[in-house]
């Protein structure tokens, strides 16, 4: 009796799952069939051959060489690189800004605390798209025309154009920036040696720490060593490794220096504001999540304020902060796709342009979803490794 009932249950379960799988396959297959029929009627059978054809588009910002005879595939790579670059920079900057605001949020100064609170509340309750549009249309597009650009420290350049330390117009921002010069390679060697030395020094410090039971700040000391040696090298080298490159106005476009387009600037500013508000909240929650007793215990052990924060509060706060921080970082890469609304050529905008050009909707959407999935996977992998490192080691 018991056996037959068990058997029945098993049969039912297997049959149920089998039916479910059949249903899913049926739906997917019929959708796929419909799509193929519809595409055949339009004479556009799905194929990825178009990727190697010339794109015939111009992309304003590209890290690798690109012109309108480059292939569609290369265009997608350009977009992907733009997405990765801006995500990386945004994550970097907004982590620092978020940390700062998160610390302000728990400040004992009422004014500081409430300004941080107001910032977080305002940013978190406005859609990112509106923020981006605001930066683009209400800030960057309202800048003066390039002919009347705001110029800081202007001078007459040798080529006859107008030079300056900073150009600000509705085309974007150009600022004087360091450019590698003759001594650059030599300087890189010095830095490499410094890093090597620092690693050795760091290992020694760690061993020393283990032996004596003290906890020297390994990373900080090694970093200062690198900075110190590099600075020394910079001064000693006969040819300066880098020179200032000033932007000059030739015709309508500032040449030289570091130039940031309005689109890049808007996406950067909007994303940083948006992301840092979320990071600030995650960090505040992390720090407030550490039990007060921990701080009191550390104080009663005679640890200084700084030591308490570095050795007791921060490691525990990180444990709480990392999981939400991971999803925020994952969100950044996805949020850059909103660049399409302000014309920044990120991955999604490039795909959108190619979509209009080639009409290959199915293939391009598959490509873009796969790439974003891959990016998410890599990011969460890295963060998971970091997370498992700082979590409690339970014995």
């Amino acid at each position, binding site marked *: 009796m018991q056996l037959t009932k068990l058997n029945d249950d098993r049969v039912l379960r297997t049959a149920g*799952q089998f039916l479910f799988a059949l249903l*899913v396959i049926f739906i997917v297959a019929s959708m796929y069939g419909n799509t193929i029929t519809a595409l055949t009627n339009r004479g556009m059978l799905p194929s990825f051959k178009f990727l190697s054809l010339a794109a015939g588009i111009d992309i304003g910002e590209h890290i690798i060489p690109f012109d309108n005879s480059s292939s569609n595939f290369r265009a997608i790579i350009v977009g992907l690189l733009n997405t990765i670059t801006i995500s990386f920079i945004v994550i970097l900057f907004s982590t620092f800004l978020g940390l700062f605001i998160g610390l302000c949020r728990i400040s004992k100064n009422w004014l500081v605390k409430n300004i941080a609170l107001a910032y977080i509340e305002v940013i978190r309750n*406005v859609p990112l798209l509106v923020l981006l549009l605001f930066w683009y249309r209400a800030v960057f597009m309202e800048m003066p025309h390039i002919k009347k650009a705001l110029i800081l420290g202007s001078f007459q350049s040798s080529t006859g154009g107008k030079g300056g330390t900073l150009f600000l117009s509705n085309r974007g921002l150009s600022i004087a920036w360091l450019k590698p010069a003759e001594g650059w390679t030599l300087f890189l060697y010095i830095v490499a040696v410094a890093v090597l030395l620092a690693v050795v020094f760091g290992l020694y410090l760690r061993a020393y720490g283990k032996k004596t039971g003290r906890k020297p700040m390994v990373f900080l000391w090694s970093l200062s060593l690198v900075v110190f040696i590099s600075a020394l090298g910079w001064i000693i080298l006969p040819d300066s490794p880098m020179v200032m490159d000033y932007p000059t106005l030739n015709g309508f476009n500032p040449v030289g220096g570091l130039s940031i387009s309005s689109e890049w600037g808007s996406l950067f500013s909007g994303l940083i504001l948006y992301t840092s508000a979320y990071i600030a909240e995650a960090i505040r929650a992390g720090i407030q999540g550490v039990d007060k007793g921990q701080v009191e215990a550390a104080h009663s052990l005679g640890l200084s304020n700084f030591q308490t924060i570095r050795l007791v509060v921060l490691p525990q706060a990180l444990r709480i902060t990392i999981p939400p921080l991971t999803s925020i970082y994952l969100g950044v890469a996805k949020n850059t796709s909103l660049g399409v609304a302000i014309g920044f050529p990120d991955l999604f905008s490039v795909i959108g342009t190619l979509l209009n050009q080639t009409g290959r909707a199915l293939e391009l959407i598959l490509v873009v979803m796969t790439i974003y999935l891959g990016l998410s996977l890599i990011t969460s992998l890295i963060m998971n490794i970091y997370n498992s490192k700082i979590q409690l080691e339970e014995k």
Partner: protein
Amino acid sequence: MNSKIIIWAKNNLFNTWYNAVITLFLSYFLTKAVRSMVQWIFSVSWVVIPRNLKLILTGAYPVDQLWRIWFILLVGTFLAGISYSLLKKGIRGTVLVLILVPALLASLGFSHVSRMYLLSLSICQVVGYLSGKYLFGGKAVIIAAVGWVIFVPFIYVMVNGFTGPEGFLPLVRTNLWGGLLLSMIISITSIILSFVLGLFLALGRRSELIVIRYFSIGVIEIIRGVPLITLLFLGYLILPLALPANITIGVLLRAMAGIVLFHAAYMAENIRGGFQGLSKTQYEAAYAMNFNKFQSMVLIILPQVIKNIIPVLVNSFTGMVKDTSLISIIGLLDLVGISTAIAANPEFMSDSQQVLLFLSLIYFILCFSISRTSRKIEASMNYDK
């Protein structure tokens, strides 16, 4: 009194020398910023907002049919009034604000009809509150619950209409829906549908049947790995191809499909969190009472899970309201889409700052009040325990 303020300032603003310096610096910059903000507000022309207010709020919805929207609002505020009477302490202030806002708006100099409607909104809330408290008595809970359940289909029927042009409720095509109206309709629909879909996905993810479990995990993780806009484009471009040739679906439904699918995956994770927060003893107790799996899920587990995640649910509503803004990218005229269209109008070309600021303000008020509500509900639930 005076000394109290001084003591407070001493403790909170000037407790150490560096805090005093920071306070002074910040106050200086804050005054400057506020002053230049105020100067800017008075230096630009705001005529673009009142001239386009109807567009921003309802898009191209026919003017002679606007009473339908007002009617929906009146019914909604009445239901809200009944609901206030059911809520516990700590929410009085919010209620008062909600009642006063329409009345205050009415004093802003709208047309006579709008003012009357706005005043009625306030009155409806008060009437709802009083009748919930004194008239319905114990039945108020049931009336409110049934009312809210009917309310959503009611919105559709009212906004969409069903009769011919001469009838009582003439049909209004979805391409005429726009502005705040469209944003809200999409948000409300997506929260309901994505909750239902998310519930199934969450249950699937917890299922012991491996096919169903891996199917749910796959769907959830793929969707969470891609940006919303790719799903919107998937719905916009591929869905019409994937459906049988004789079925055509409008842009609004396609957009909705993308949004619902996207949020369902996140909702599923929230619901899963609710499941994990529930003690194992509940399952065991249900088992001990000889409930079968279905019964224990529907009668014991789900009610508790849903109750626990109500604050999260309300909070994710803000995310939904914010995310609907993306439909402007596929050309729908929601709040953002309509504002872009207004700013592109040569007459208001120079007013894009004002339009965008007003837009942000609408979103802020909406989302801020929703998230405040969620916090209030959370607090009142903790108070319960």
